[in-house]
């Protein structure tokens, strides 16, 4: 049986918090500030960071629960978490409906007759809403939570195996990923197509995160500190950066050899392309190289805003999706000048931090207060959620 470490790694909270900020910035369409986010400089984006760290913390929190309270209790808690995320997703969908109904009512322009076709689904809300509840109809930027739900639904048996034979669990996960590529497995979506984030693919990163939490990171330690690995990671990041530049400056594309272009395109986000995994791993290697676990600055006030967001990821994520809707609304109704975009982006992040601080404060008073539950009943929640 693997021993689950008891000390929370603040780096995880920090980078999950940063990933949440980046996802928020990327989700506001036409946001000049999203120029700074990592997806513009390589193959992977904040989603990889979020899924990996979510896997890591899920194993950390529920692994301890499974060891101290047994399989049934841990499973029940994982499923409860999946339910909470489902409820959060449906709540966000309601907000989305409100937004789209408003646009349908207020906007008309002959230039955009084709684009307004997106509102057609409002004509039969019975089907659309039902499909949304079944997680088959997912509006733009609302694909991460359904992925998270699916990952948690099968997480309990995965965790059971991870605690007994981590390498076997990781192998099974990799086998599932390979089968997905060979047999083209994915869940169907509505009105057509498949899930934007294929759970059969993205589970690999989630399980890899969990594997790292359960001792994998220590086993990799020797490799992570090797200058050769760090050098390779740096070279790969540079390669991805050069390719990314050809997306914005088409004439640079002429310098990409046809062989390379044929080999790398398309870079498949739905099925978590190997290029994206490698890019994420390279980022992780470089990050671990520069930011040691016991880095004193992690406890400083400078990083607190990101860390507190990372510690309450579900609430902050949902708020981020809502704020990105609201931000887009400000752009369309008030102003879309660059300074507005900067203000909206900064304000959004400030609201996310404030909300995370508020959730922290609630946790503290709930623990102090004369509530019906003694604090020991939820040890897994100490220091944040999964």
């Amino acid at each position, binding site marked *: 049986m693997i021993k689950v470490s008891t000390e929370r790694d603040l780096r995880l909270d920090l980078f999950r918090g940063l990933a949440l900020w980046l996802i928020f910035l990327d989700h506001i369409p036409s946001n000049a500030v999203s120029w700074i986010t990592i997806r513009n400089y390589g193959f992977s984006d904040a989603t990889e960071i979020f899924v990996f760290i979510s896997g890591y913390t899920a194993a950390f929190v529920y692994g301890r629960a499974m060891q101290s309270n047994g399989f049934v209790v841990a499973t029940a808690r994982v499923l409860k978490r999946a339910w909470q995320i489902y409820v959060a997703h449906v709540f966000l969908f309601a907000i989305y409906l409100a937004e789209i109904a408003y646009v349908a009512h207020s906007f008309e322009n002959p*230039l955009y007759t084709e684009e307004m076709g997106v509102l057609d689904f409002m004509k039969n809300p019975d089907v659309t809403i039902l499909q949304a509840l079944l997680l088959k109809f997912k509006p733009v930027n609302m694909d991460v939570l359904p992925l998270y739900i699916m990952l948690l639904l099968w997480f309990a048996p995965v965790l059971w195996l991870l605690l007994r034979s981590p390498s076997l669990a990781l192998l099974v996960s990799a086998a599932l990923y390979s089968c997905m590529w060979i047999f083209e497995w994915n869940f169907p979506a509505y009105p057509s197509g498949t899930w934007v984030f294929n759970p059969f693919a993205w589970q690999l990163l989630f399980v890899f995160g969990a594997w790292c939490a359960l001792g994998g990171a220590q086993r990799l330690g020797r490799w992570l500190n090797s200058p050769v690995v760090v050098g390779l990671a740096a070279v790969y990041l540079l390669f991805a950066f050069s390719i990314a530049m050809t997306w914005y400056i088409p004439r640079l594309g002429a310098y990409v050899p046809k062989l390379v272009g044929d080999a790398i395109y398309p870079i498949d986000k739905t099925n978590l392309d190997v290029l994206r995994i490698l890019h994420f791993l390279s980022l992780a290697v470089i990050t671990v190289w520069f930011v040691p676990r016991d880095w004193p600055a992690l406890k400083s006030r400078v990083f607190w805003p990101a860390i507190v967001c990372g510690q309450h990821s579900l609430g902050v994520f949902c708020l981020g999706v809502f704020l990105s809707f609201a931000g887009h609304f400000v752009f369309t109704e008030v102003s879309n000048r660059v300074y507005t975009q900067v203000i909206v982006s900064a304000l959004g992040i400030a609201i996310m931090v404030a909300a995370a601080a508020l959730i922290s404060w609630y946790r503290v008073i709930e623990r102090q207060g004369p509530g019906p539950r003694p604090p020991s009943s939820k040890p897994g929640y100490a220091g944040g959620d999964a």
Partner: protein
Amino acid sequence: MMGRLAFLLAMLVLAGPAVAEHPAECRVAAHQIESIFPLPHVAVGIAAKKLNVLVLGAGSSLLPGATVGHEAYPARLQRALAEGLPGVEVKVATDVKPKRTAAEMVKALPAALAAVKPNLVVWQTGTADAIQAIDPDQFSQALDRGINISRAASADVVFINPQYSPRTESMIALGTYAENMRWVAVQQEVPLFDRFSVMKLWADLGTFDFYSATKKLDMAERVHDCIGRLLADLVIEATKPSEPHAEGGR
């Protein structure tokens, strides 16, 4: 990213030579309409003094309610090509219907190719696929098929990607489809008319207000006029005998 880039490019537009003879509002950075791939079949047509173009498209290649003199970009493309290629008989035919996905257009393509016998297929697509959330792989495969069918019929292809539509941006996930289009274009060496970035640049420069709600056609007409002209520039540029990187300091 694109926003910031657009501002840099706007500076370039103001500093560098503007696209000649166009209304000032059409001006965009030269690189957005440059083509790094040649159009051999178009060059053959120009040499033979007869250029046939087929516009294959969906709703954003139409202007609902437009009358003669106020048409969508295909008619304007014909005028601009005729102006830019004196002595060449230019004919632009259209196969345009709203809400068609790339795969649906490919199905209609052989008949249209047989009827028009074009030297060039201008293919506007992507929006309907994004709205209907077509599997991006199937979208890319449809693009590949369309290119192969066109080339087998001795026609070059130019892609036009989706419009920049700020109001519906949070509802239509164009990203994947625009990316796949760009990748197919690079792999198949097809010039891409980056309508999205051109329109985004106009929005950033304040040339057009794409947020405005109106039933009037005037802005839509001016946008289509510019698109027709810029498209003609791209086509003519791609058939010039000089190497495509000759102009502009690098």
